């Protein structure tokens, strides 16, 4: 058992923080959010140069072989800087599914483009009725002479506005499978959607989209891998939330130190000091939860759910309090869109409603710990 970051990991964290501090300040972000595409191609190219887009993929697939810990460090930095580019959607969610389920040529082509910064895949899986039941989809794939035709509706595809490739799930002979569908495919309609946190998604509809046989991803364990990919993404979201919470604490502490009322800084009032200390307590707890999620993404399913959904449940609850308190302690300033406080608040709100709500995750966690062996089990694991 060792929970200390390695020197390489600390360097990665430092370089990620520095890059975003220099190249992605709040004004720059505001311009990106207000732009037509809501996406900055230059920043994306720099992320490719820094190796971020290659980070989670194995070396044989052209990646850097980074693990969940490295991803968590990038996500914390992304949270603090409020990055709206689809790192999570393209690299962690769609990218990792291609790596798990893609054929050799799909991996070479799509991951190659993703790592180089020229391609941005997005996963189009959940549907209106899916909710937290990932198996509940109704899009269909029908065999044709030399391939398939796909039909169905996929609302709120994260990263969908900037995507050039969609991984579309559909039922083929009753089984859920994934298909690689180019954004310009015949019969595919994409309607961009602005999201509450300033990022862009799209509502996708497919009507008899003809796809060649080569569009089908390998493997008949698609649903299992989709669930695992959502768990990886949820662990990443937990770390992103931790980055935001720390940023909210830092901003609140420095604001109350500067803001003078009744002849002294707000930070001199004990009533406010203890509220900030309570924020720090919640930041610490959230950090513990996110770390457990990070170290659970490759564990056995029950341990994975315990780590990941436990973190989403816990962090959902405490991050909401932290964000509300940060606004309150900023007074009217926290209410303004000119300050990042509100943007962090809205991103945390978005996280609470992405890949399952806080309540969904609490329920999923609760079902897992219903087994007394899990409930009473140590966090330490036996070596393989």
């Amino acid at each position, binding site marked *: *058992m*060792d*929970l*200390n*970051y*390695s020197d390489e*990991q600390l360097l990665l964290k430092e370089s990620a923080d520095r890059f975003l501090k220099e190249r992605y300040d709040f004004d720059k972000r505001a311009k990106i959010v207000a732009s037509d595409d809501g996406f900055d191609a230059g920043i994306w190219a720099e992320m490719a140069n820094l190796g971020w887009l290659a980070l989670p993929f194995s070396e044989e697939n052209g990646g850097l072989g980074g693990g969940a*810990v490295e991803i968590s460090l990038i996500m914390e930095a992304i949270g603090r800087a409020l990055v709206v580019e689809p790192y999570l959607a393209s690299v962690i969610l769609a990218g990792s599914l291609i790596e798990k389920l893609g054929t050799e040529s799909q991996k070479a082509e799509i991951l190659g483009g993703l790592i180089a910064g020229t391609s941005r895949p997005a996963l189009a899986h959940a549907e209106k009725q899916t909710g937290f039941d990932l198996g509940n989809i109704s899009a269909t794939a029908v065999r044709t002479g030399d391939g398939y035709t796909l039909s169905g509706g996929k609302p709120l595809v994260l990263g969908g506005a900037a995507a050039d490739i969609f991984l579309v799930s559909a039922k083929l002979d009753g089984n859920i499978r994934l298909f690689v569908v180019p954004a310009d495919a015949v019969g595919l309609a994409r309607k961009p959607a602005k999201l509450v946190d300033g990022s862009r998604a799209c509502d996708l509809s497919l009507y008899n989209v003809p796809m060649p046989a080569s569009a089908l991803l390998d493997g008949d364990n698609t649903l299992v891998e989709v669930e695992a990919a959502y768990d990886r993404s949820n662990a990443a979201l937990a770390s992103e939330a931790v980055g935001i919470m720390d940023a909210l*604490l830092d901003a609140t*502490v420095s604001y109350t*130190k500067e803001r003078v009322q009744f002849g002294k800084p707000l*930070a001199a009032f004990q009533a406010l*000091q*203890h509220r*900030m*200390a*309570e924020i*720090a*307590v919640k930041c*610490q*707890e*959230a*950090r*513990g*939860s996110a*770390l*457990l999620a990070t*170290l659970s993404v490759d564990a056995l399913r029950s341990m994975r759910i*315990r*780590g990941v959904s*436990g*973190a989403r*449940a*816990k962090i959902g*609850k405490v991050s909401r309090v932290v964000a509300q308190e940060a606004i309150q302690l900023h007074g009217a300033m926290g209410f303004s869109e000119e300050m990042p406080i509100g943007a962090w608040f809205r991103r945390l709100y978005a996280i609470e409603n992405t890949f399952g709500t806080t309540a969904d995750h*609490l*329920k999923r*966690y*609760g079902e897992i*710990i*219903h087994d*007394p062996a899990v*409930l*009473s089990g*140590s*966090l*330490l*694991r*036996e*070596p393989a």
Partner: protein
Amino acid sequence: MDLLMTEEEVRFRDAVRTFLGIHLDDDLKRAERLNPSFLADPDIGLKWQAKLNEQGWVAPSWPKQYGGTGWTLAERYIFDQECERAGEPHFRGASIKMIAPVLMRYGTDEQKAFYLPRILNGEDLWAQGYSEPGSGSDLASLKTKAVLEGDYYVINGSKIWSTLAHHATRMFALVRTADTGKKQEGITFILIDLKSPGVTIRPIRSICGTHEFNQVFFDDVKVSVSDRIGEEGEGWDIAKYLLEFERGGAFAGGVLRAMLTRLHRLASEPLPDGRKMIDDPLFAARLAEIATDIDANDMLELAAMSKVQAGGNPGSVPSSTMKIERSRIRQSIAELAASILGPDALRWEERRPLHELPEESEIAEERKVASAIYFNSRSQSIFGGSNEIQLEIIAKTLLR
């Protein structure tokens, strides 16, 4: 970075499990289940301590040279988890966790050689003499006086909230040896024999119905200068060192998880009307929330442990966070358990210790002690530096 045990640690865990399976008998476990307090009934605690002493496992945190186990932090963590899972009586209090590390750090060779073995074999039980009727969180304002007369200090004053002082043989105390200068500078750390003439002990029953606390009065009590720890006026630094042990030196993950597992079992039993609390979605949600709190706190404990193992310091914000959260988690579990009782919550059993009552089913006994455990849990956010003091410590670090 990982959560993996080594092969040796797995073997160690299995050895601890085997030992507990053989030696921790049902009477001891039942007595602990029926104990609403933080520390076990002393008779029970001493019985268990004697069994552990034969194995050399009384003091997991002590170095080998003093009769401890010399275990690594990871081994201590595993040992704690296994003991809690098995339901061991909690006997490691002021003797093993507080005065012992102070003796090791500040004691003379004679003091160490005399006092440490007596702690391990149970001959001495120590009480803490810090708080006074007028000095709680503002500890440095303490007034109990020690006046040097030849080879003796003469002590006058009173200490309060001394846990188990009525069973204890000795007390370590902070006393005032000077009134000049800063109030912290006039404090001295001394060891008092509680059988000395002039010592009077008044019991204080706590709201959980148990007599665990006491007020201790000193009326011209003589203490040999050889029973002073460190120099005169050095008491405050020693006290701070000791509080570090009280605050950050222990694991709570094991006991919290064991308490929640007990609650889960209790909630899985049918109530008189046939319902089970665990099937109630509101109850299940509360239980799950608390479990996520325990996981988070456990990760902070493991992270702090990793830091210490690598030669670092966990830092004051994580340490105070753990102190606050442990108390809150324990209180939430106790409160949720008591919420199951229904009208039985009105019944009150006055007899202490409860394990001396005729045996009933495990569930009936869990129900019998649940209110008292809830009442007792309120002390968690008060002792060892109240949660308000912890928030002060965090705020100071944040705003510095």
